[in-house]
């Protein structure tokens, strides 16, 4: 009898998670899926437009291109930082971790305006460069994709740093020593032994950053100044400015398929538990 009731208690304790997921994700998602084939009228017209509309293609390609650029740059920076972290003393490791963590505690909105202040025409960076005589007229650092990329990379580095640190920590030092003992130079050890063993971590970190970037709204909206519209901002414009709910929903569906594909690759080729471990 007690066993029975214990089992029921376990079930009762477990049901909130599926219920929340159902309420917050599956139901709204089903709504969007329905909109994409019913608004403004039933049919596949929205998907037909998705396939042919040049303006939408431009937004989607820009989104993919920016996300890939941010992914590569964030990965490069995070790799360097993780490598320094790996070979520094425990004291230094704490400092590096703190520097990576610190931006986490500041809202993305605040950071974006911070970058705006730093990068705009009469901002800090241009001011310093002019004062130093490096440039005569201000560089265009905002209202274009450069500013968006800088701020997005800054936001994404921690997300790439921790998976990379975790995959580097799993590399056995003796394996690297063995490679040197067998005649490999330090560069060779890095290229042939160290780097390949971080590949699952690199792939995982890249996909995580890429997927995260796909949905970015605040940074491109503020730093792009309407010049660098990415998918999320475009969907917002379609739904709340032009009231094209159907086409917005169709773009959402396309993004969902893309993200699902990437997550499948992530699960298939890099063991997620090793990235967080």
């Amino acid at each position, binding site marked *: 009898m007690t066993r029975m009731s214990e089992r029921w208690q376990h079930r009762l304790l477990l049901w909130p998670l599926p219920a929340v997921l159902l309420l917050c994700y599956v139901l709204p998602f089903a709504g969007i899926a329905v909109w994409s084939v019913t608004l403004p009228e039933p049919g596949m017209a929205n998907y037909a437009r998705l396939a042919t509309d040049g303006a939408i293609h431009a937004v989607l390609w820009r989104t993919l291109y920016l996300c890939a650029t941010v992914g590569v740059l964030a990965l490069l920076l995070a790799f360097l930082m993780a490598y320094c972290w790996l070979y520094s003393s425990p004291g230094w490791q704490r400092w590096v971790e703190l520097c990576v963590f610190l931006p986490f505690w500041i809202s993305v909105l605040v950071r974006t305006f911070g970058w705006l202040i730093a990068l705009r025409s009469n901002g800090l960076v241009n001011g310093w460069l002019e004062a130093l005589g490096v440039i005569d007229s201000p560089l265009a650092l905002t209202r274009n994709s450069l500013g968006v990329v800088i701020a997005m990379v800054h936001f994404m580095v921690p997300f790439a740093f921790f998976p990379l640190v975790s995959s580097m920590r799993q590399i056995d030092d003796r394996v690297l020593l*063995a490679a040197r*003992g067998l005649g490999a130079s330090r560069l060779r050890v890095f290229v042939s032994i160290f780097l390949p063993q971080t590949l699952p971590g690199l792939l995982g970190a890249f996909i995580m950053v890429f997927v995260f970037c796909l949905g970015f709204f605040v940074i491109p909206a503020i730093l792009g100044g309407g010049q660098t519209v990415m998918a999320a901002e475009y969907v917002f414009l379609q739904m709340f400015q032009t009231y094209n709910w159907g086409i917005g929903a169709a773009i959402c569906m396309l993004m969902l398929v893309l993200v699902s594909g990437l997550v499948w690759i992530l699960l298939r080729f890099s063991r997620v538990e090793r990235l967080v471990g």
Partner: protein
Amino acid sequence: MTSPPSPLRDVPPVKAPLQAGGVQLSIEGIQQRYGNFLALDDVFIDIRRGEFLTLLGPSGSGKTTLLMILAGFVTPSAGRLKSAGQDITLRPAEQRHYGMVFQGYALFPHMSVAENVDFPLRVRGVDRATRRQHVARMLDTVGLTEHAGKKPSALSGGQQQRVALARALVFEPEMLLLDEPFSALDKNLRGQLQDELKRIHREMGTTFVFVTHDQSEALALSSRIAIFDHGRLAQIDTPERLYTSPHNRFVAEFLGRMNLLPLTDVQRSGRRVTGQFGAAPLSALGERHFAHDALLIGIRPEQLEVALERDDASARNWLEVTLLERTYQGHSLDLKFAGADHSVLTTSIAMTHPAASAPLGERLWLHWGIDEGIVLEA
């Protein structure tokens, strides 16, 4: 006393290297300091070409540190390594051309067995055809041909060990360094791999330097053993000479079992050392000059004879003891005796021996030849 021939030296290597038996590498006064801790203290060893040298000692005795210095992974605090007249103390590991087998194997997890073995050839820029040939031959030598395409994680411990061995030998290194390679394997597999290692050493004629804390492994494999104690080289010699004439108490007790009998009223005439052990006068032949008079007679368990009665006619050492313990071993019986001054002596006898049926507490006699015991400083 002349030194007996080593057991492995009488089997010449198939591919006799140039000046076999000559000095390949001199370790000259190597010292390694970690803060106040002296890991190695003034070690001198001449490593001979083609020999199987074992560095033996308890953990923390400095043997692995010395191996790391030989490999080039650790720079010694003092002293130098000389090879062919050149000082190679500071030469980086990748330029020494020594193969190394690590504890835990250290295989490249992202490469197949064949790629692991191929790696040292690839970094040396050997052409593809030659590489393939060498890898195939090496995999055949260690019996892993059919596992060539597998990842190391798909292999058993013994197979991984063979991959590590093949990888360290495929580029025909000048020397092979092995750091406790069998410590993670079970006893049967260890014996099998030891035989294989001996065969490979014979066939390739490469100098092997082997680190272990397992004395029976050292005795079974080596042409010479260097015994380390707290960073100091206690003695280096062939296994038989280390066993039959250890220079000090540490070596005597570390290699095999030894009954130690402290002497009082020591007297010397020529090589003969005589003293009292309890009420019994004991003698042995001392080979060297001893600085102190506090001496021990050491006698191996297998040299002790057990008798029910004393035979006064024979000029041997006789010791009256009490039977303390008997442990049945199947083929033999281990006996433990109490001697004078709370000393304990051990030996083994055959089940057919008349003393095999003696009850505990029985008074028995142990005896051995005067030239069988060895004299050690206490």
